[in-house]
């Protein structure tokens, strides 16, 4: 199906009945075809989301961990297109409502919100930002629970891939609590007014992209399989991750102190 976007004016027409599927919304006045965006396999996405719900996974700790890498692997779109909030609103109406209803109570921003609020775009962006080349293992770490996802993915430092991966690994290694991650995140943000994140764990920008992977169209069997693979680009050097983890750890005693106070 040709990719469309939904104009933001649709927000005024969305209510609990639309969310519940009790009222069908006529999107046609708000629909715009996205030039040169190509097509998306709607059946594949529907099948994947249904498969995820049929597994009856814990929705706080297991569902997104399982689903996010597979959703990213199934929806091979460029970041430029992913940055269009209207496309995510369209996808939510095309395939997402059953998953959204299962995952959250009604909230308009799950359909029309920014990258971290829209129920489907967060799956894609969190996977894109936390993958290490073709390896989605770190995506599962940052989605181990909602608080890790919040502090690993939603701050400004979370735009830097090595910083996301280092946060997830440290949280997993320490089995960090909500409070510990909150304090650590506060400390990172405070120090970054004087310190460079990139210079703390430098990664040379990867100018190449895995064209074969991005152009390939996987099957449902491939994406629901045991170990989906991402594109072999944007691999993060271990050194950058290690250096950032060391820096984060150096902030933790201070975070503990503040917590004690």
């Amino acid at each position: 199906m040709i990719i469309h976007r939904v104009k933001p004016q649709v927000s005024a027409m969305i209510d609990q009945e639309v969310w519940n599927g009790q009222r069908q919304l006529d999107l046609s006045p708000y629909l715009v075809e996205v030039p040169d965006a190509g097509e998306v396999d709607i059946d594949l996405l529907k099948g994947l989301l249904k498969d995820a719900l049929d597994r009856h996974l814990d929705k706080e700790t297991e569902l997104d961990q399982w689903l996010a890498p597979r959703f990213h692997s199934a929806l091979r779109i460029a970041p430029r297109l992913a940055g269009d909030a209207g496309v995510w609103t369209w996808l939510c109406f095309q395939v997402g409502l059953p998953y959204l209803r299962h995952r959250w109570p009604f909230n308009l921003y799950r359909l029309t919100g920014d990258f971290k609020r829209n129920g489907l775009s967060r799956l894609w962006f969190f996977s894109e930002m936390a993958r290490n080349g073709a390896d989605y293992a770190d995506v599962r770490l940052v989605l181990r629970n909602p608080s890790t996802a919040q502090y690993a993915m939603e701050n400004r430092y979370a735009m830097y891939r090595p910083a996301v991966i280092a946060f997830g690994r440290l949280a997993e290694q320490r089995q960090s609590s909500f409070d510990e991650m909150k304090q650590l995140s506060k400390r990172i943000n405070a120090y970054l007014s004087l310190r460079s994140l990139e210079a703390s764990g430098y990664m040379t920008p990867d100018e190449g992209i895995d064209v074969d992977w991005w152009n390939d169209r996987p099957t449902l069997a491939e994406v629901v399989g045991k170990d989906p693979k991402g594109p072999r680009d944007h691999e993060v050097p271990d050194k950058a991750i290690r250096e950032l983890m060391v820096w984060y750890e150096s902030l933790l005693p201070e975070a503990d102190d503040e917590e004690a106070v």
Partner: protein
Amino acid sequence: MPQTKLLYPYEYSSQIRLVARDPYDPAEEGRVFKWATVEEESSEEVSTLDLSHEDRPWARICFKVEASMPEEELAELVPLGADVSSDLHMYLSIICPATRLREAVELVRDDNVWRGDITIRHSHVRGTVQLTPFLVRATDLPAGTAPTSGLMLATDHAMRVGEGRRLALVVDPPNRSLKGLVKTVWERFGESSDATRRSNDSLPFDLDLGGEEPVLFLNSSQTGMRAALHSRARTGAAAVMRHTVNAAIAQSVWLQLFLAAVAGLDCSEGSEEIGLPSQQWKRRVLDTLVAQLPSNLPRDERIRSLVQMRDDQMETLVPRLAFVAQRVVRMGRLIRDAERAAERFLDLQEGSA
């Protein structure tokens, strides 16, 4: 214009000068980018490299950057006798908030200038890309290291010791509070093919409702307004101007859109039926308007009340539409943003005094 000075607990420079030049697309030999540069005077001194008016798609843009700073300023950032190349590293930060792109390119120092080659893929960016040079301490300084100037030095590696003016690479035209409903075109009114705009060449904008879709013409002769609307500055004159110009234009535009949409409602005498406007954009504007009217009435009744006011009580309708327009553009927030931008600017000035 007053200058802002940020305070750091050690020597810090904001004197880095960044120049970007020679843009080309490696996939298209000989292509010349129309790389419009808009200089701004504001506390953050953001310059704009505007690629949003390119008439053909581009896949990649490559360009060279050079960062430099006065030697005497540089000398204050390093210990006595230190080698600048090994003690300080210069990077160019590349951030695209819309696509969550964040990376940095390390620049190479040669002959007192740091140079680098930058490549940006069109498929990885959207809106505006922020390019900011920054200088960091490359190594931990031993305790007690003597600074050149007798002032404090940042002692830990990765500490930022300098930053330069930001360049805003505009990939797509800004889409502000009009939310994609209105096409925006910059035009020099004095040279417009439209006689009305030509004869009003000192005015800042004109909304054309006569075509298939509304088009907002912004007068590019108003260079200060253009710089302000492209600016990403958070404080200072450019930020205050951006918020207030946005508020003024957007409110006026929405009011005109509402009036046009209500005028397009058709209610034949003696008929209960109300015909919606034939143009799709007017129906969308009407949806926005109706959603903002008191919700204790069904949608049809709300539309009917608009028609009644239009036909019998224009003096009631117009102020009501003006209220809705202010709500839609979030006028209060824009004014508060302008106030905050001015307050922060004044605070910084006082802090540095």
